[in-house]
């Protein structure tokens, strides 16, 4: 090893003081913006720590896709709870005399087969879809996260059993399962549908939760916390969960959109929601045979359904882009 002649120490003190402004480090030639940091001698720069969440929120705020979809969803949630805000009529008050008529004053979307006002039914239909979507997602997310997370954390036999059980549920294509399961179930409320979607949907979220818990568990800070005497529940709640939850949120948000679509499909097939519940799927199903004569009966609820699903999926996409470290 060659020997440097000069000894560093004092000789390297800056002659003219540290008046010059320091430009901050950059990785390669590509820039990653960082806020102005503080200098510490003799050579490091410390910056304010930024968490994944604050970064993600900053990105989301600036993403027009997110803003647009969030607005649409907010609007949908509001009219689900208070449909009367924009629809004054009653979705169930129908007059057969008006069957299949086109739009008329006070009835912008026309009438359906039964003579019900399509506009009112479309507005009220939002409630069913949003309710099923939100409840099913919450249920599947909670069930999936808990089961998948515990399996990922503890591993062992429980994990193996969970994997096989998940495989069983994965082995049933969801529409197929819906046909079979829901056709034998009676009752006209939303709960059987929600229950079914949760039943077949939790493995997807469970798998993601398990994977991210396993990844988080392998981090050194978990070892460190354990060495400091942290018990399992503390580890799970305070250390692992906050770091493992991001992928679950992404999948759940996207799943919301697909669950709404699924509910509509099941209602269309006749095994989902049933009258007198107002659902877009039911309306589309009833309108389908008359598509030649009165396409408006089908197109309006179909359009509303598509916009709703699109809004949720766009939201999920935007959330994923914000939380995905690989795209930063």
């Amino acid at each position, binding site marked *: 090893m060659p020997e440097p002649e000069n000894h560093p120490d004092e000789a390297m003190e800056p002659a003219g003081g540290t008046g010059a402004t320091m430009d901050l480090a950059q990785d390669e030639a590509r820039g990653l913006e960082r806020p102005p940091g503080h200098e510490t001698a003799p050579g490091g720069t410390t910056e304010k720590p930024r968490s994944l969440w604050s970064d993600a929120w900053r990105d989301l705020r600036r993403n027009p896709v997110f803003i647009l979809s969030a607005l649409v969803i907010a609007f949908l949630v509001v009219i689900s709870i208070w449909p009367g805000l924009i629809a004054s009529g009653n979705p169930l008050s129908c007059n057969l005399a008006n069957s299949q008529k086109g739009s008329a004053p006070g009835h912008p979307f026309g009438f359906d087969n039964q003579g019900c006002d399509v506009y009112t039914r479309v507005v009220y239909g939002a409630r069913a879809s949003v309710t099923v979507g939100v409840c099913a997602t919450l249920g599947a997310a909670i069930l999936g996260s808990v089961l998948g997370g515990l399996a990922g954390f503890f591993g062992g036999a429980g994990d193996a059993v969970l994997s*096989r*059980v998940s*495989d*069983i549920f*994965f*082995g*049933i*294509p*969801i*529409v*197929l*399962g819906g*046909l*079979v*399961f829901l*056709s*034998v*179930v009676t009752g006209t409320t939303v709960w059987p549908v929600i229950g079914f979607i949760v039943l077949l949907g939790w493995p997807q979220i469970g798998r993601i939760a398990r994977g991210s818990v396993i990844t988080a568990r392998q981090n050194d800070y978990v070892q460190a916390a354990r060495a400091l005497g942290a018990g399992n529940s503390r580890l799970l709640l305070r250390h692992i969960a906050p770091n493992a939850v991001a992928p679950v949120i992404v999948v759940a948000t996207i799943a919301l*959109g697909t669950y709404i*679509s699924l509910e*509509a*499909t099941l209602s*269309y*097939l*006749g*095994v989902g929601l049933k009258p007198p519940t107002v659902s877009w799927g039911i309306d*589309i199903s009833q309108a*389908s045979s008359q*598509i*030649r004569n009165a*396409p408006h009966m*089908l*197109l309006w609820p*179909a359009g509303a*359904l*598509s916009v709703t*699903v*699109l809004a949720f*999926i*766009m939201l999920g*996409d935007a959330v994923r882009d914000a939380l995905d470290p*690989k795209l930063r």
Partner: protein
Amino acid sequence: MGRYVIRRVLQMIPVFIGTTLLIFFMVYALGDPVAAKCGDRACDPATAAQIRHDLYLDHPLWQQYLHYMAQIFQGDFGTAYNGQQVTELMGSAFPVTLRLTIVAILFEIVIGITLGVITGMRRGRPVDTGALVLTLIVISIPTFVTGYVLQYLLGVKWGVIEPSVSAEAPFNELIVPGLVLALVSLAYVTRLTRTSIAENTRADYVRTAIAKGLPRSRVITRHLLRNSLIPVVTFIGTDIGALMGGAIVTERIFNIRGVGFQLYQGILRLDSATVVGFVTILVIVFLAANLLVDLLYAVLDPRIRYA
């Protein structure tokens, strides 16, 4: 590699049992097959008892299941609502659905991968953004909606195709239904391919391939595509499940007398033999497809073989 295969096959067995048991349970425990056989009127006790005995329903559920499974392995799926053997219905229905599915998968692979490769290599440009938006919209519109819209536009308004498919369902009539069936999956394939290609284009081994002085075409086919398409291929395999569900809807819209049609009829008439029979076969197909895909994955990615 052999060990990997055996392991996967063994893993499949409990899953198969669990799935068929679950379906069996859902249909037989929750529903009432006897009432179905009698039609709209209630059965008199003697007939009901006779039917129960014929259908083996006077035994405990698990015995029923075993009995049913034994029958299946002998090729007997029972009798359908119209008196035909379920296997006969399957014989007429499966080829039709098979053709439909083949058309759909071809669309998915050809259009999906091509579009994905083009956009993946031109990331950020207008083609890419346009494709992203388009795929997002396609994913959001449920299959039955696109089905009706296309049926209306192409079948009724512009008269390009027949709105309903004939009973023999030849390939050319299945093109539009196949496209409808494939659309959502196609969109997913495009996005997945795009992401995979975009990631791999920046990869170190691609840089090495270029540094070796290989021609661009070889870098793309032999290095980039071979790596990028692995997740796509595995996705297509698992997507078969979604295609099966979508087939039910598509067949209903276009009046195709395939598996979905028979299944739907069986459900309408509460015919458990038909329902359980068809669904069991579909589940077997799905599991087999998944197994094949896993094997294919191991063939394509050597890192898996020795895991």
